[in-house]
């Protein structure tokens, strides 16, 4: 897993502050990595989570909804999904 702050600009539409590469990690790894990153992020920043675990598709949207942040997109890429999340509070 890696976490790069202010180093990665993945999507032209989003200024990604933190990218979490959780590919190859099984549930609950990707979601817990996202939660750790949310704790570190500033309000208003965008985060990008890469996950190849199918369980993430249920868990992350449900947690984002519960925690009242914003899930902007789930982008299906080669062998994994990319979740774009905005920290709202």
């Amino acid at each position, binding site marked *: *897993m890696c*976490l790069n702050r202010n180093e990665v600009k993945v999507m032209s539409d989003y200024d990604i502050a933190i990218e979490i590469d959780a590919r190859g*990690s*099984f*549930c*609950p*790894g990707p*979601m*817990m990595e996202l*939660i*750790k990153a*949310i*704790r570190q992020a500033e309000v208003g920043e965008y985060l990008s989570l890469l996950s190849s675990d199918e*369980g993430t598709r*249920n*868990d992350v949207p*449900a*947690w984002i909804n*519960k*925690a*009242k942040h914003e899930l902007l997109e789930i982008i299906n890429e080669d062998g994994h999904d990319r979740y774009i999340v905005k920290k709202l509070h």
Partner: protein
Amino acid sequence: MKKVVILGGGFSGISVANKLAMKTKRKDVGIVLIEPRDHLVYEPQLLFWAFKNYPLSKFTKPVTKVLNPRVTWIQTKATKIDDTQRAVELSNGETIYYDYLIIATGASMEEDKIGATHDDNVHHFYLPKATEELQKSLSNFEGGTILISPTTIPFKCPPAPNEFAFLLDNYLRKRGIRDKTKIKFLYPLLRAYPVPSVAEKIQELYEKRGIEFVEFFNFESVDKDNKKVISLEGDEFEYDMLVLVPPHEGQEVIKNSGLGDREGFVHTDRFTLKVKEKENIYAIGDCTDLPVSKSGAVSHFSSGTLVKNILSEIKGKSANHKYNGKTICFVVTSFRRSLLLDFSYNYPPRRYGIHNSFIYGLFKKVFKIAFFQVLVKGYM
């Protein structure tokens, strides 16, 4: 003569030291263990000890009784690893040099980061002293709300908080105060255990036993003045007693040496158990960042691979033995029943039930004896 230095004398460190001692000759390989504590604790017993008072000596042994006499034990702590010099600085001021280093320093229980103590009726059962305080508080408890929650993931023995909830329910029923007590289980995920099929069974049992499950509770802080626990998601729950899994991190020596991740867990190759991008250093057990449970079973099943790889390297061969992630895990659902999980890197957990209280009781007793007499001593 090659020198193997092992940092940490918990189950992982001592069992690997003993296995190496059995498989090598004194003239070929010197083995040194660095460990400040003088007793080895059978940690799975702490969960049960919280509910019944008996001497700690029933499940601890002096290091001298479980360590092969061929191993040199230095009773001190490692403070820094210098992999370029193949040296380890010790808290007694000395420096020890190695040909091969095994890191088995375990996880550090960061109790201070909770922000409350047993005096605030905030407890845990991951260290003997803390468990003793919990035991006292439980014996004086006469009713109210008990909350159970992990603080961080990963933590040692993933089912431990679930098991505590089940045993607490049993304990309160026996004392006749279950109807005066609310038990709430607060958990970071959408379900009560990481593995969906196991979570389903656990939640079914929670419902039967009146244990309330609260999903998506990621511990943030304790408001000890108002007896509330607060989550990252913004939820707050009042408690009369709060039982947490304390925050887990890697040890200071790992953080000081730049060998770990943000939490100080050692970057470890999941197959060979070599520390990533380092020569002649291996890691085992709770100190690693392996994508498997932090448990004695993982240490046990991976120790054979580690020992074979070090022996190969000593003989000038490459370290190509691989750990397949095999482990087993018991989920205690009452003082008499348990689920057994079996999994590896290659297959998801398979679940078996041990519902015969005689077999389970016998197994528990035999396993504790086997822990000290067979597993720690490296016979298996």
